[in-house]
């Protein structure tokens, strides 16, 4: 007669979820896995007990002391990494102060190499002499003799609708 403790997860008849076996390069464990194929255990069967005992011996649990040592090691690395990152960032800021007049903040490290001096090619859409004053294609219209702008009929005087004056 076998007794199953339902509070112990290793003693449960069916595990709450199925985890596929992890492939490993260790030859001993690979042989064990081949010798004991995974099957859904049945309560009270000797086969399931054998399987449970072999699984328990294959993956030993880390002791509390070892776990604490790992955590301490991680903490040390985290603190060290933060200090190094902070130092690098401070050096970058000191070397290249970037102010901002808008809400968009960009760190110097993010500034790429697409730089321009005003005397080279400053314009967004056009930069050369001809392009700045370039007039669009000639429009087919009554007064469209010069493409981008045109005058109307000068034969009859009309009351002005607006003024162009020195501002």
């Amino acid at each position: 007669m076998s007794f199953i403790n339902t509070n112990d997860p290793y003693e449960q008849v069916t595990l709450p979820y199925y985890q596929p076996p992890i492939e490993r390069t260790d030859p001993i464990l690979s042989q064990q896995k081949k010798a004991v194929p995974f099957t859904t255990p049945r309560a009270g069967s000797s086969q399931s007990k054998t399987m449970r005992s072999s699984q328990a011996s294959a993956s030993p649990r880390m002791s509390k002391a070892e776990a604490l040592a790992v955590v301490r090691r991680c903490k040390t690395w985290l603190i060290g990494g933060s200090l190094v990152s902070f130092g690098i960032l401070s050096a970058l800021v000191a070397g290249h102060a970037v102010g901002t007049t808008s809400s968009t903040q960009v760190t110097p490290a993010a500034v790429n190499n697409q730089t321009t001096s005003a005397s080279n090619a400053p314009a967004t859409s056009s930069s050369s002499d001809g392009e700045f004053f370039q007039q669009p294609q000639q429009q087919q219209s009554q007064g469209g003799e010069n493409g981008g702008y045109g005058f109307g009929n000068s034969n009859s005087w009309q009351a002005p609708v607006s003024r162009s004056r020195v501002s």
Partner: protein
Amino acid sequence: MALETVIPGRHQYPDLVFPEPLHIPFGMARAQFLAMGTTISLLLPAEYLRRGEEIVRTLFADWEQTLSRFLLESELTHLNRLSGKSVIVSELLFTVMCRALAAAQATDGLYDPTLLNQLVQLGYDRSFDELPAVQSASEHLNSPGGRWRDIHIERAVRLVKLPPGINVEFGGIAKGMAVDAALESLRQEGIDTALVNAGGDLAVLGVPPQENQWPIEVQGKTRSWVIPLHHGAFATSGVARRRWQQGAYMRHHLIDPRTGLSAQSGLWSVTVAAANCEQAEVAAKVAFLLGVEQGCEFLRRHFLAGLLVQEDGTWMSVGSWPREAMLKEG
């Protein structure tokens, strides 16, 4: 039906007087408000007046808030304070900066956005409405311009670095670009007939119903003419306004970058017709600085039409400018 709507802005400019009534084309209406130190006037189809005015008013308020050198909290003021440092700027400021630099390059530096220090030393150190008509002589010697060549920009991150101690101001080009942007916003709203006038720099969209052109009054020194604009933009630069006395010298705001002083070109004003207000504004200013002969040559070279009025009141037209309209008026 002629509708006239005059809506003053929040800020009152004491010396700005709304112009005398102008003709309003059939089916259209006018709105006016104050922004960027001048009067903004709109002509729109009557049914779109409120919506159109709201769009344009908002746009000009944003532009002024960003680009005014007289507002302590404007983005341009911040940029100028940080001259010598790399600064990430807004898309609007960056776009205007790029266009200003393109204009400087296209005009061999005659249009120069880096003359703010010279302008301040000549006495234009506050909004023109607050400027005293007579000031004491300055002990500073003005230096020539040209420092726009040392402005460093990085397009990918909208970074601008002004040379140390150099400040920029966009003045006319910003106003011209705002007019163009306002028209584009109206067009996107489905409005296909409009006129936007920012203190004399104007551009049109479509033609008014039943009239097929926009009669525009162009002011000379002693008289004015009505020029029929079909499409495009007008801008006028001159010394009729924004002039003051500094010591024994009469100063005005059109600074010649070759000397760092108010230009003495023998011209009273230059009006230019171009595809857009940005071009017209820059071309008018440069032609003014160059004087009659070189100014005419400059406009011809760029296929622009213009009217150059000299200090003695005589005038000269360039390109396809409709001389017949002026001669007919006598």
